[in-house]
């Protein structure tokens, strides 16, 4: 039983943090919002040089061969810095491609995995709880569903209809396409299992980002409250202000271990994986939504402006809550497992190894 991350994992995380601190500033985020794609190829290539998109790509395909437990801290940092690039699609899509390789398409998988690891290709992934696909416009390969079949479709073969979204860091698309035998990569029970795994991974990746978003919103609120003066003192000296941020901090901290455990469950494919992921998505999602509300109130009118950077993260909090199954959807999945199943849900530790 060891809940700590290894030195290597911490080091990877701090390397990514330093990189994002320099390369993913609010000014750069705003500049990208004004571009056609909203994405930066040069950023992505440097991100690939650090090994991030290839983190879960097997070593023989040019990746680092790590798993979700290594990815979770990196994803948290991408949330903290408000990164708009399609890293959630990578976190869900790479293991899906690996599985597709194991299920009879090794050549296709290896080709795309090595392209992803090198930064030359990006993925987009469809899941059953949304009619839209994020970042389909910059993806080279789209992993799409047609009933209980998964298709790997090059972008040239689909038609995209942009669906402008409130969070400018999001790029959503409706995808029009026709499934063919040539694009089919998995079907039936195998495909269903892979779809569920990929969905859980996507939700898990969102939860990791939501943790970072929550922390950033709290830090922005605390930073502002410490310097903004009214009645001759910093507003952050008032208990009414302090307690809002303290409450947000409690929620964020109690989401943290839940998210890390979910990463562990996903990596090891434990029997409670889906419920663990839902708990992570709900806990981190609610922490981020709550932090957004409290941080806005602490900022006052300036927080309601476009000019202030707060909305970059507020909008992330709102959009991530609806991505890969809304918080409400995941809450319902938890209630079903905890209340409706004949056998009570597993509890961490308490149930013991044999209940």
């Amino acid at each position, binding site marked *: 039983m060891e809940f*700590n991350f290894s030195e290597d994992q911490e080091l990877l995380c701090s390397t990514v943090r330093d990189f994002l601190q320099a390369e993913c500033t609010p000014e750069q985020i705003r500049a990208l919002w004004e571009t056609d794609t909203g994405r930066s190829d040069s950023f992505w290539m440097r991100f690939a040089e650090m090994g991030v998109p290839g983190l879960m790509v097997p070593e023989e395909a040019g990746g680092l061969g790590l798993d979700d437990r290594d990815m979770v801290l990196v994803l948290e940092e991408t949330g903290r810095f408000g990164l708009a690039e399609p890293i959630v699609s990578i976190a869900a899509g790479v293991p899906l491609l690996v599985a597709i390789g194991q299920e009879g398409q090794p050549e296709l998988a290896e080709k795309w995995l090595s392209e992803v690891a090198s930064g030359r290709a990006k993925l987009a992934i469809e899941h059953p709880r949304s009619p839209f696909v994020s970042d389909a416009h910059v993806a080279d390969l789209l992993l799409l569903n047609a009933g209980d079949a998964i298709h790997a479709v090059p972008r040239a073969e689909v038609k995209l209809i942009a669906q402008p979204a409130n969070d400018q860091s999001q790029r959503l698309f409706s995808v029009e396409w026709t499934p063919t035998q040539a694009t089919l990569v998995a079907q039936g029970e195998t495909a269903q299992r892979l779809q569920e795994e990929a969905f859980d991974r996507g939700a898990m990746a969102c939860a990791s980002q939501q943790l970072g978003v929550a922390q950033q919103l709290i830090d922005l609120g*605390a930073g502002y409250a410490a310097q903004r003066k009214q009645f001759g003192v*910093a507003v952050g000296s008032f*208990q009414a202000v302090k*307690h809002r941020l303290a409450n947000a901090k409690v929620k964020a901290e109690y989401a943290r*271990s839940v998210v890390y*455990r979910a990463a562990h469950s996903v990596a090891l494919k434990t029997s409670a994986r889906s419920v663990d992921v839902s708990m992570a998505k709900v806990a981190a999602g609610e922490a981020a939504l709550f932090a957004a509300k409290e941080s806005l109130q602490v900022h006052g009118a300036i927080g309601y402006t476009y000019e202030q950077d707060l909305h970059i993260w507020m909008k992330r909090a709102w959009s991530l809550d609806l991505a890969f199954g809304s918080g409400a959807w995941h809450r319902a999945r938890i209630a079903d497992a905890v209340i409706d199943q004949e056998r009570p849900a597993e*509890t*961490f*530790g308490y149930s013991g190894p044999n209940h």
Partner: protein
Amino acid sequence: MDLTYTTEQNDFRKEARLWLESNAPSTSLRSFDTPEGFEEHREWEKKLHAGGWAMVPWPKEYGGRGADLLEWLVFEEEYYRVGAPGRVNQNGIFLLGPTIMEYGTPEQKKRFLPPMASSEEVWAQGWSEPNAGSDMANIQTTARIDGDDYVINGQKTWASRGAYAHWLFGMFRTDPDSSRHNGLTFVLVPLDTPGVTVRPIEKLNGKKAFAEVFFDEARVSRQHRLGDEGTGWAVAMATAGFERGLMLRSPARFQDTARRLVELYRETVKQGVFVDSCLRDTVARCWMEAEAYALNTYQTVSRLIGGGKIGAEASLNKIFWSELDIKMHETAVSLLGARGELLANAPAAGNVGQWLDGFIFALAGPIYAGTNEIQRNIIAERILGLPRK
């Protein structure tokens, strides 16, 4: 990160389970806030101690089992699983004990820890005073130095377990010219000292759960000082860290309540009794939060085993568990409907009385161990860096 138990940890669990299943009382003991219940609980503690299970993470020489904190968590899980009695000496074993381990002299450890582990000596807390509640640094009870003794004058209040305990620990002002956090000393006081008067206070349910303690020229050996003279505040903050954080509220306690709440919900639905559909979401949420608390504790324990220390983040814990405890119990009472009002001895109560007891107990959570408002100030100032003034 590897969230699976080792073979040794699994074996430890089996051993604990076996012992507890064959030794834990099969019926509930009376409240330890009554004279009879207090003694019944001490008997149970003696049995635990004889089995070597009284203080799992303490060294054997002090009456412990020499286990690590992870094994302690496992033990707690098994303890709540069999519904074993509450720990009558929790102020001693969970709060003062670890503080003595950190600040005590070798002689003090030898003198105080073994009878604490066996509950031969039960401890009360002596923090608050009539004018030092949330403003703890306003302590006015003095301990005048007179040769080898302190001579104590003043009054403590809200001393948990004070009504029946043998000893009290607390902070006293040893430097008469000092103010606020300075000049305070942490002293251990036998409650049978001449000049000490204990007046029990009844809590909401009429039980004598705490007490006022009056000191009139009460003479206590200076050997009973914990830590250096004038450093009482620092020593007390270590104790408070244990109280708000890890030790006093191990996660199994809340996971057990959450499990019973889920069962109660399922039973209530099955019986066709009216259930507000909103309660379903609340029940699931309680279950989730109890899990979150357990995970957070496991992560903290991993950090402590790796050499980390408990700091201001204990304040996050205290808010989380105290509010969760109330939410679980008020949800249960609400599910029970009219029966939620019944005391445990009502003929129609069945086993519902424990929810009401738990509810009354939970209500104190946001108040004791430093009110949640104080905890929020600590989080804002010490963790988020907001200005004190």
